[in-house]
């Protein structure tokens, strides 16, 4: 007979939840209405936000966790998972989101950091966390703190995919290089990456991260999403790219289709037709503030 003991919040159910999102698109939404559009378009989850990154950039000020009322409204509107963001290091915002039973917490550089030295101890929570990373060391530090999913950071709110590419190539390239090292070289590699030795060893042996790797920050078109998938992402976060575009309904569905069929150029071409204006992009050089540098 099986034992009746039931365990919640295990790393297997946290990282397993991210496995279920693979091959999918997670969309930033700021209202119940937008959440419904995202679900209808085939999003695998929505990220509940007060303001999308492009507006955070434009309006400035301190960016914080969304109003719990807004989050509850979005949870009531859709049946797909609802994620929400907390400031880096703000463990009480995370406690609040756990109490609201959001399905995933993004400890995000898009919001204004609350702690300039430490991230949240994510092992202390039953709700799983996703964190951004610009390179392998940063990804492994976050996993060491208990993150059950990683996303490459890119540069949020720009509609410019160049930083997403840079970060994804950095992470996957560093994983490939680790896999070529001898066992005696791994401690030195751990030191260089500033990452836990056991995780460095695991990555060297398995040739991948121990959790799902999504991409984010600047994805605005179906071709952007498909390129990130071909570069090795397990799935895509789209922030401002959808609801800052001319025709969000069409663009959302098109990005989902291109992500599913990312190896099929004809399907990507079909998905890219007649989408109207993409969000107005910004080149990274002209930015007053780079969000990707937030994270320690």
């Amino acid at each position, binding site marked *: 007979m099986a*034992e009746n003991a039931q365990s919640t919040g*295990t790393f297997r159910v946290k990282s397993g939840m991210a496995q279920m999102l693979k091959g999918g698109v997670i969309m930033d939404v700021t209202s119940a209405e937008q959440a419904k559009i995202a679900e209808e378009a085939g999003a695998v989850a929505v990220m509940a936000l007060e303001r999308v990154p492009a507006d955070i950039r434009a309006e400035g000020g301190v960016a914080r966790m969304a109003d719990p009322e807004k989050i509850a409204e979005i949870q009531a509107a859709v049946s797909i998972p609802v994620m929400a963001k907390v400031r880096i290091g703000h463990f009480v915002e995370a406690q609040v989101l*756990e109490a609201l039973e959001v399905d995933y917490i993004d400890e995000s550089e898009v919001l204004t950091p609350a702690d300039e030295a430490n991230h949240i101890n994510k092992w202390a929570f039953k*709700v799983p966390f996703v964190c951004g990373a610009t390179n392998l060391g940063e990804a492994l530090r976050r996993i060491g703190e208990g993150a059950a999913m990683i996303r490459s950071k890119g540069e949020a709110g720009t509609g410019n995919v160049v930083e997403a590419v840079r970060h994804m190539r950095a992470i996957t390239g560093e994983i490939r290089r680790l896999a070529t090292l001898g066992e005696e070289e791994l401690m030195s590699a751990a030191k260089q990456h500033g990452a836990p030795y056991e995780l460095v060893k695991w990555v060297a042996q398995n040739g991948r991260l121990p959790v799902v790797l999504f991409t984010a920050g600047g994805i605005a078109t179906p071709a952007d999403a498909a390129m990130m998938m071909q570069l090795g992402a397990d799935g895509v976060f789209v922030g401002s790219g959808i609801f800052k575009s001319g025709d969000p309904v069409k663009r959302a569905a098109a990005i*989902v289709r291109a992500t599913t069929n990312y190896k099929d150029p004809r399907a990507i071409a079909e998905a890219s037709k007649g989408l109207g204006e993409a969000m107005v992009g910004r080149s990274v050089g002209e930015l007053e503030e780079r969000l990707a540098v937030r994270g320690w």
Partner: protein
Amino acid sequence: MAGNGDRVGVLALQGDFREHVQILQRLGVEPVEVRRPEELEDLAGLIIPGGESTTIGKLMLENGLLDAVRSYYYRNGKVWGTCAGMVLLASATTGPPQPLIALMNALVERNGFGRQVHSFERELDVKGFDEPFPGVFIRAPFFEEVGPGVEVLSEVQGRIVAAAGERVLATAFHPELTDDTRFHEYFLQEVCGI
């Protein structure tokens, strides 16, 4: 078992299809990632993986796979759904309308155990298995009711989490996220006859 060129499909539109593919490889059958109707030809069985059932259902509808999988099944095909796959196999849901393959006489409750913080692991007694099976439940559904022709294989707190019909199998949990291959072997041997 197997090893004689049997090909088993895994629906690869979204979700954890690679985990199923890897287990099939370990068990010596040839996995086929299915994204188009024509890829269903000559399959000894088809697995619908975990993922988001609304997303997978919409993509199946768009790609012509909803009808194609039904045709595959009614031409003596064998189908197993895990989690989102279980939802898609049910004939009706208690929630808002969504595209379903509807091969099993069952009413499904999506996310029946609650949101992600309530996701859990536990051992399961499964009909026909000598030892308990490690159940990994992630925003898992359950069958609230099953009709004639559907046999209940396992329950948690009185909720149906594994069931078998004619050439069709459904599990609310994720054998593909564990190292225990007994459910995959059960599907290949007892359902597909490999």
